[in-house]
């Protein structure tokens, strides 16, 4: 997962997540500092983290250290919920509040450890396990016209209140996709030929083959998703109004060739997810035809108008105010 945990590792060798976390907390500190120096109210930051593992249709809470592995798998009571007000959110998932980068890294470590213990005992059949580390960031600050930064933050502006406070929220998902970790399955380290022909999965991937047959672009059909939980969790990040940056981590080493290739292929697919605003737009429509008729009529009116004027001019009455086109033509529903 590019985690690079070891504290003895130098900055240059850190993985993407530690870097992101450090950057985040540095940014928080900078904003606090700046406010203090300027004498403005210091913004409040709240940072939460969640760590989930998904495989097949099971969701595991990797922060849940209280229960035995088997018991945990037996059940989670975790729900992925979506309602009209709150978008997508999880219920029953341990959320850890974090106040420092070190704390965050510690959380990550514990969760990752929990994951690798689970995986070795995993059923060979369930070969697709994803891990999602989510950071929720919430900033409450004084609302001022000078606050132009971070146009990418989702805003819930309290426009009705004259007074000051606004809440900015952001969500970061770090996703470790199935098969990208060198887990052991029947002895092999990592699935071979995931995009080619999969052996060890038996016929589990048949659904993937079938769903790839259809015309993806049209959305005139429904595809029952296999990875529905993953898609649901990431729903508001894929498509829609959130700014999504996908960072695909690959390796220059030839030993990681397959993982690199698969990651790139996945990233390419994700990039092409475009959500159409409007699905059906008929070009041939009665409306257009009716409108053309309208225009034709207007043009005729115009010709008539010009003709009358021309006649009057010829008759030397150009200085008279011309009677405008009779009223009935103006009021007609054309």
């Amino acid at each position, binding site marked *: 997962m590019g985690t690079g945990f070891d504290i003895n590792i130098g900055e240059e060798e850190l993985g993407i997540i530690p870097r992101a976390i450090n950057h985040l907390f540095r940014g928080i500190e900078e904003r606090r500092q700046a406010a203090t120096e300027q004498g403005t109210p210091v913004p409040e930051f709240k940072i939460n983290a969640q760590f989930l593992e998904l495989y097949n249709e099971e969701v595991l809470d990797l922060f849940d250290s209280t229960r035995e592995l088997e018991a945990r798998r037996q059940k989670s009571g975790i729900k992925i919920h979506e309602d*009209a007000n709150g978008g997508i959110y999880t219920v029953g998932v341990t959320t850890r509040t974090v106040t420092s980068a070190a704390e965050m890294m510690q959380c990550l470590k514990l969760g990752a450890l929990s994951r690798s213990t689970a995986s*070795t005992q995993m059923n060979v059949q369930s070969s697709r396990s994803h891990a999602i580390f989510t950071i929720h960031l919430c900033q409450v600050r004084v609302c001022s016209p000078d606050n132009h930064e971070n146009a990418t933050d989702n805003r819930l502006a309290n426009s009705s209140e004259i007074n000051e406070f606004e809440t900015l929220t952001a969500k970061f998902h770090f996703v470790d996709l199935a098969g990208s970790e060198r887990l052991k399955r029947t002895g092999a380290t990592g699935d*071979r030929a995931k995009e080619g*022909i999969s052996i060890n999965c038996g016929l589990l991937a048949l*659904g993937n083959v079938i769903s790839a047959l*259809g015309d993806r672009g049209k959305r005139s059909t*429904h595809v*029952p998703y296999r990875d529905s939980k993953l898609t649901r969790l990431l*729903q508001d990040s894929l498509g829609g109004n959130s700014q999504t940056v996908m960072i695909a981590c690959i390796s220059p080493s030839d030993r990681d060739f397959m993982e690199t290739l698969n990651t790139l292929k996945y990233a390419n697919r994700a990039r092409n997810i475009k959500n159409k605003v409007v699905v059906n737009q008929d070009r041939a429509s009665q409306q257009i035809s*009716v409108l053309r008729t309208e225009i034709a009529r207007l043009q005729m009116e115009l010709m008539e108008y010009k003709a009358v004027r021309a006649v009057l001019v010829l008759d030397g009455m150009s200085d008279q105010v011309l009677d405008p086109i009779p009223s009935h033509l103006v009021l007609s529903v054309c």
Partner: protein
Amino acid sequence: MASFSSNEWKAVCAKFTNAQQLSDVESRTDPENDPFRSKYKARELLTEIYCSLKNFEAGDGEEHDDGETSEPEPTEEPLDGEKPVDLDAFSRGWSSDSRAGLRAARLAAVEYYLGVNHVDTEELSAGQEHLMNCMKHLGKCRVSSENVSLFIHVRNQLGILWAGRDETEKSQGFLETAESIYQRYMKENGSPPTDMTEYFCSEENQLTHQERTKKFELAYTHTLYYLAQVYQYFGENERAANYCYSTLQRQLQLNQFNPMEWALNAATLSQYYITKGQYMEGRHCLAAATVISGLAGEVPSEAAAQESEAERDRREQLKQKRSEIARCWIKYCLNLLRDAKKLLEDNIGELDTDRQDELRRARRREEEEEGRKQALLFGSEDTFDSIASVEEKVSYLFPLDFTEARAIFLVGQNYVNQAKEHFQMDGFVTDHIEILQDHSALFRALAFFEEDVERRCKMHKRRVDMLEPICNDLNSQYYLLIRRQLMFELAETYNEMMDLKLTLANRQEDSQSLDNHTIKKFNHLCSASAKYFQMFLDSLCSPEGKIPEHLEEDVLRPALVARFRVARLHSKLISSSPPVQLDNLNKALENYKYVVQYCEAHPEAAAAAETELELSKEMVGLLPLKINRLKARMATNN
């Protein structure tokens, strides 16, 4: 000549069993830092077995000196790739009864396992070598029930290997040969073939006929499944779909399937057929999906779900998956209606009675010729009838009139209600709304077939009633995309209703004497439509309300169309007050101008809304005159 004593043979068999155990079971618990430990051990054992086999029963190259009928060693197959359909293998080569044949088969088997072993440990070249050696040994044999299993398996493995190297043509070669071999074997022989694991096992541990058949058929099912992937890779989707169908059908016949998994796959396959307009096949897949999903059992009750987490999960799973199938059915009905509409509509989107007659005639002709034969046939003895009875509930033919369309609509609506039971708004907003959108689309499609204008209006009203409350309830931050879709659809629906009212009014004798009530109704619809188009346009603006300089590709056409419509709607509002008329005309002009100006500033945008641009240009030319006339009138009247 040296041959195995029974003790020596037992030792070989034991070694083989050990190797299997290491490879399949113990390897799972190998440590992270030595992940192939068991596999390497297995390899050693297999190599020893190979040597034993080679040394014994060989007599130093005296293969022909043990009283065999003199069959010369068959010529070798090329080292790389596969000769197309080398069915000589059925007529030439050592029979497996012969000592040479048996020995070759055994050597081939060991080479096979060595090959797989090396592939598992990521030593692909070595794996390939062993697998090709296997082929070489087999190449000397005639296909028989003792070795055909190996013939198939080795080609499956080579297919996978070459696909993994992105040499899919080679892969295809091996897999297609495996296919031919299977087919011919089943035709000419068909008896349950020996499984490879049986080469090295004692009499008592031999498999039953049933077990043998199962393993063999499973191997061939994989061949078909791999071929499906190959054909898909080459973009031969139709063939790929056929192979997916075959794979699914075999799963049913061999009773090797998980009901819900199978049902979902069949339902997904139906969607492929739908996109191709093959509704008979699509319907069959869906009917099969429905029937087979029933085999997964009853949904656990609420009560049971409260008591046990496992039961709760099972309940969720079953409900969800069955609802997914319902959604596939909805798409079936919707697409059938829409495709029929496309066939029947004239150039202004109304039902063309001439085309209708034409299609009716064509259908009668087909019926007389006994129609098309059903290409797909899922099921086993138990399920054929149930599948057929589900199929009977809905037609696969394009509806040609209102009655037929309504029948399909009702089926679709029924599935809408089914799907909504699980995908409730609270919990599944996105899915719920997609289902509602489909429901709305069903109404829209049905309205096309409805001749009575009032009734048509009522159908559109149903759409509005369904979608309007939702649109307003959704959080605008999280559901921006969906809200935009709903706004646009509501705008178009109100517009549609407005046009219908107009049609009704125009049918009356005197188009000037529209009564107040009608005018009010008309204006209401007109404004409502404009309001939603405007809402849509506003949603494109920045939080401060600034209009975007540049429209993104996915909103470009909708935005231009919305502008165009807003313009038109404003010019259609009826009012007896000249200042109001003026205001409306000005607004109309403003929006028509926007379209023209935007396309001038962004030439590439013109293609997205050709007709709208053309008409906007005309209106920009004509409206000012109308406005001026109105102003002049207002001036004289004051």
